[in-house]
């Protein structure tokens, strides 16, 4: 069942930044883009299991803190070696100042 889960408050995340969100034994990364939109992906890099929330957001790219692999966090696409497996993304909506993500 597609379920909407509250991840954080909209202003918990700076513009062009990312935070970690753990829920039911899973971990996610929640992004706020420079143009003030919100996105969500799996929290761990597909190369080695490293938290992407420790990485750097630049425009629509998240760069992994460990070996600087890159993904487009809006689409999940793997952009730069060593990552070659795409990142799973999740639908996001903002309601009443809260960021909600839809899990499968």
């Amino acid at each position: 069942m597609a379920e909407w889960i509250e991840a954080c408050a909209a202003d918990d995340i700076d513009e062009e930044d990312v935070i970690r969100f753990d829920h039911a034994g899973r971990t996610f990364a929640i992004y706020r883009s420079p143009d003030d939109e919100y996105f969500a992906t799996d929290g761990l890099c597909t190369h080695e299991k490293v938290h992407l929330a420790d990485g750097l957001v630049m425009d629509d790219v998240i760069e992994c803190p460990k070996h600087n692999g890159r993904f487009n966090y809006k689409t999940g696409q793997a952009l730069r070696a060593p990552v070659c497996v795409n990142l799973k993304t999740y639908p996001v909506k903002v309601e009443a100042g809260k960021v909600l993500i839809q899990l499968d």
Partner: protein
Amino acid sequence: MNERGMVIVGAGECGTRAAFALREEGFAGPITLIGAERHLPYERPPLSKAALAPEPEGMKAIAEAERFAAADIRLLLQTQVVAIDRKAKSVELGDGSRLPYEKLLLATGARPRGLPLAEGSGHCVYLRTHDDAEAIAKRLRPEARIVIIGGGFIGLELAAAARKRGGAVTVLEALPRLLARAVPEEIAAVMTAAHRQNGVDIRCGVSLASFGDEGRGVRVSLQDGAEIAADLCIIGIGAIPNTELAERAGLAVVNGIRVDERLATADPSILAAGDCCSFPLEVYGGRRVRLEAWRNANDQGSLAARNMLSRGEAHAAVPWFWSDQYDLTLQVAGLVDEGKHTVRRDAGEGAFILFHLAADGRLVAASGIGPGNTVARDIRLAEMLIARRAAPPPEKLAAAETKLKSLLAA
């Protein structure tokens, strides 16, 4: 099959990246990637880390066979390139066959520096390849006594891995401290303390006298008379670039195959990249260096591919590397010895970053250490500041509440 195309010697990080980058950049002709090892190209950094863990991770391929097939990259494994015929523009393979090239990339990497004193011992080994790591993993038993010669990155990562498996570990370093070549003393001190806490016997400033096999192990004798008995001795005293092929072809070798900022040798049809080459570092006014770092191998692989396609792009990256030992990760951007002053920034959980500034205030390097990825983001931002030749106010660099990203916008 013998249509002239792009030929890459060395199927390591650099050569493999170059092969894929050629396709990504739109090259449609033949690409041949030739490697001496028998395995599909694989990542080397895990060899001294996850590959030696108590529950070791298997080999980490850079790309599976299907990806090579999909990109139509011809992969010749277990194949040694023995000569370059620059006139005919072809390479000669171990079996005597020849392969013509349009452009040739030498990505031959490096090999461990040998220790002549240890020659002849059956219990002294080196680490560079997957097969080396597998052989070492078998001998890292909980009851094993391990001596590691060399307190550099490979030696210390090996020490951490051996301790995790329960072995008794001694590290012998000739210089007065660990990691003397690559990181500042404050950072080396944190690593040294971590190793001592984990029970590693670290001895710096020692001079080796002799090695003698004894029963099922080896006895290492020092100049001061001390003796250490071990079941296995692992030697990690640096690497030397694989330059013989280039040398025999008459190409210049200066601590690595000499290339210009576009990674070209004096022969415009031959490029070199990765651990095997020495090149001018633009951020430091063209200072000639040879790097042995994973990201450099990747970056230069991509750049070499573009320049094989005559893009004429100059190398502009800032050196960067990491090392993992226990739960600590160390990262360094830039070359620390370019700095005259140091500014420290604390990052919580015992983590800290040292910013290295030149005499004129320019940020030239940053080194950091901490648990997990605590320093990663700031080191990455520092790297961007270094690339921009920024001279951020030292007091801002030191203040944990100043976001480095804001300095980048300045």
